[in-house]
């Protein structure tokens, strides 16, 4: 990845550009003050951050400017009182700056909706709230700029932050809809579009507080669980592919029958068997129609058919293993016996690789199970509402139950993360 990727610029547009600009290469000169190596990293593109030349900072100001600093009073439009404050001001040629205090523009306040008595009676009545309470809430909202935690603190009757928020946003929503000439006019307004969801907010805060109250050790375990979940998911894909190919191979005539450790798969194997049988028969038949062929050609066909169900990576690994064993990828003396042995060896290597994956997978599963006691916190939901789809893969005789627990934990962790990152559709979330 280079700077172009980071900036999201398409690479295609560059060759043409480069061709054009090649004659005037000089225009691409690196600016002063940046080392050549650093400039090379940007690929000649302007950097995201402005680079200020160091010499520029040292430059003396023009001689016709006389700069002084003075302790002067100032007024701010952000203040309602007449408090007089002072600050240091940079003065050029003895002319003090005029106008408002430069930070006054950041003094923003929330516009709180005002409702009339009539509107309240018509749209805003709520059995849980009196008009007085609602009025008080809106006063406090205006006073504290929707800082609901502060509002809850000052609120005379005891109401939770969520209750206050719920009342405020539902009132705003009702008023906005009531005042709009047609419902379509306010549909896009954030308050209308995404109503405040009390239960989700409560759940979010509960999950958040749980995560925040976690010890570092628990956090580390969480991380491990997620990494393991990823690894298990990754392991399953190739392991499944290899198992299938192994089953296919085991069914070849003359192949050593490999022990089937996957009882769940046996149901599907007869189909695989027949397909491989016909595969080999097809090769023999096609060779026969040639009437004359080279032994190496026949071997190539057989090798291809034997590895057709394996992935490219598995094929590469088989070849690497052959190489490690000091065996030629293509036999030097391909007699019939040598070819048969060679094919057998390849099949055995496939079996070996498959077993290696199984061991790896089982070990991963085993180790994740051992610290599986974690996650049985009181909050753990007892009934999982859904079963992840990768659960349905290959019935492990022993591992299935453990696996279910594991998935349970993982799902639970994802639920927490979901709440953390997709907090809620709360509009104007200021608290």
């Amino acid at each position, binding site marked *: 990845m280079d700077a172009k990727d980071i900036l999201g610029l398409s690479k295609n547009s560059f060759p043409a550009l480069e061709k054009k600009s090649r004659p005037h290469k000089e225009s691409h000169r690196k600016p002063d003050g940046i080392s050549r190596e650093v400039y090379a990293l940007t690929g000649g593109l302007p950097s995201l951050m402005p680079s200020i030349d160091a010499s520029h900072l040292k430059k003396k100001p023009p001689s016709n400017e006389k700069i002084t600093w003075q302790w002067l009073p100032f007024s701010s439009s952000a203040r309602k009182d007449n408090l007089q404050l002072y600050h240091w001001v940079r003065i050029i040629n003895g002319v003090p700056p005029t106008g408002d205090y430069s930070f006054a523009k950041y003094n923003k306040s929330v516009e709180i909706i005002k409702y009339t008595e009539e509107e309240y009676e018509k749209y805003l009545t709520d059995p849980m709230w009196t008009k007085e309470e609602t009025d008080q809430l809106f006063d406090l909202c205006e006073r504290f700029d929707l800082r609901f935690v502060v509002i809850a603190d000052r609120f005379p009757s005891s109401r939770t932050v969520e209750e206050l928020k719920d009342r405020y946003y539902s009132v705003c929503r009702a008023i906005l809809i009531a005042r709009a000439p047609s419902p379509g006019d306010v549909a896009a307004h954030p308050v209308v579009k995404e109503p405040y969801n009390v239960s989700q907010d409560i759940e979010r805060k509960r999950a958040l507080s749980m995560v925040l109250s976690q010890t570092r050790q628990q956090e580390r375990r969480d991380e491990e669980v997620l990494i393991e979940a990823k690894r298990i998911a990754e392991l399953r894909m190739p392991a499944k592919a290899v198992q299938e190919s192994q089953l296919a191979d085991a069914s070849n005539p*003359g192949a050593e029958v490999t022990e089937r450790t996957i009882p769940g798969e046996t149901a599907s194997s007869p189909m695989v068997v027949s397909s491989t049988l016909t595969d080999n028969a097809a090769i023999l038949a096609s060779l*026969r129609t040639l*009437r004359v062929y080279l032994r190496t050609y026949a071997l190539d066909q057989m090798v291809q058919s034997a590895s057709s169900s394996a992935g490219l990576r598995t094929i590469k690994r088989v070849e690497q293993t052959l190489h490690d064993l000091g065996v030629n990828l293509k036999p030097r003396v391909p007699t019939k*016996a040598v070819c048969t042995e060679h094919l057998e060896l390849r099949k055995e290597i496939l079996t070996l690789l498959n*077993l290696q994956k199984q061991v790896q997978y089982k070990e991963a599963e085993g180790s994740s199970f051992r610290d599986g006691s974690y996650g049985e916190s009181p909050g753990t939901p007892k009934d999982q509402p859904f079963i992840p789809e990768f659960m349905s893969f290959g019935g492990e005789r022993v591992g299935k139950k453990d696996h279910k627990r594991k998935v349970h934990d993982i799902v639970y962790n994802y639920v927490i993360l979901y709440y953390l990152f997709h907090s809620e559709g709360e509009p104007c979330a200021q608290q």
Partner: protein
Amino acid sequence: MSNNSCWEKLGPDQPQSQRTKMGKSEDKDRKNLGKKLKDVEISIPIVYGNIAFWLGKKASEYHSHKWTVYVRGSTNEELGQFIKRAVFQLHSSFNNPTRVVNSPPFELSESGWGEFEIAITIYFHSDICDKPLNLYHHLKLYPEDENSSMSTKKPVVVECYDEIVFPDPSEAFLARAQSHPAVNFPRLPAGLTLPPPIPVEDASKRRKGDTKDHSLCQWFMNFSEADELLQLAAARQQVQAHIAKLKRQINLIDGQHQQFKPSSDQ
């Protein structure tokens, strides 16, 4: 490598399945004798390649090497009994690039400076097979190893072993091949008798075609099936041992899982 050896060395499954299949087709075959024999194959082990000598002082710009490309029997038996003609397709820069060799030994000598791929088309006698077979050989003049300097004494030799396989040979071919030393002759199905072997032509004619006393035969490479089988057997043993180890490991892990499995989950 001895003839007829392949069938004994095969794993137990394949010949058996072939033999059982043969039982069915046997009656049919006996009826139309002289036609094709199913599930029997004849193979002829061959070696093809080239030997190239650097001309040393005599080398000129366009003729730095003298080379010979050939197809020979793997044990230097003559192949003329089966091969009618070999056609060597040379690089188009040669005069008459298509060279036809109508009698054994099937070889061609030329001189040149460049390496290129030679297509060798082999035609068989009509009672054996009416279809030709193509071989491809990349002519090699310069030693692979950068360190070994070119010498006029030691040629560059590149050879490939392969076997020409005839599935379902005709009985006439079988009869002709059964006593020929250049052929891997199959074990015939029980009950099948071939006509007595056709007496081979006089030995002197055969001697002319074989490559046993070839001027270049000291450079011919040896292709040992036994070495290859030994190597494969060693590799298979290693892999099988590894497989056994992994299976034990899986059993062990399964056992551990059983221990960890809490009763509450059941």
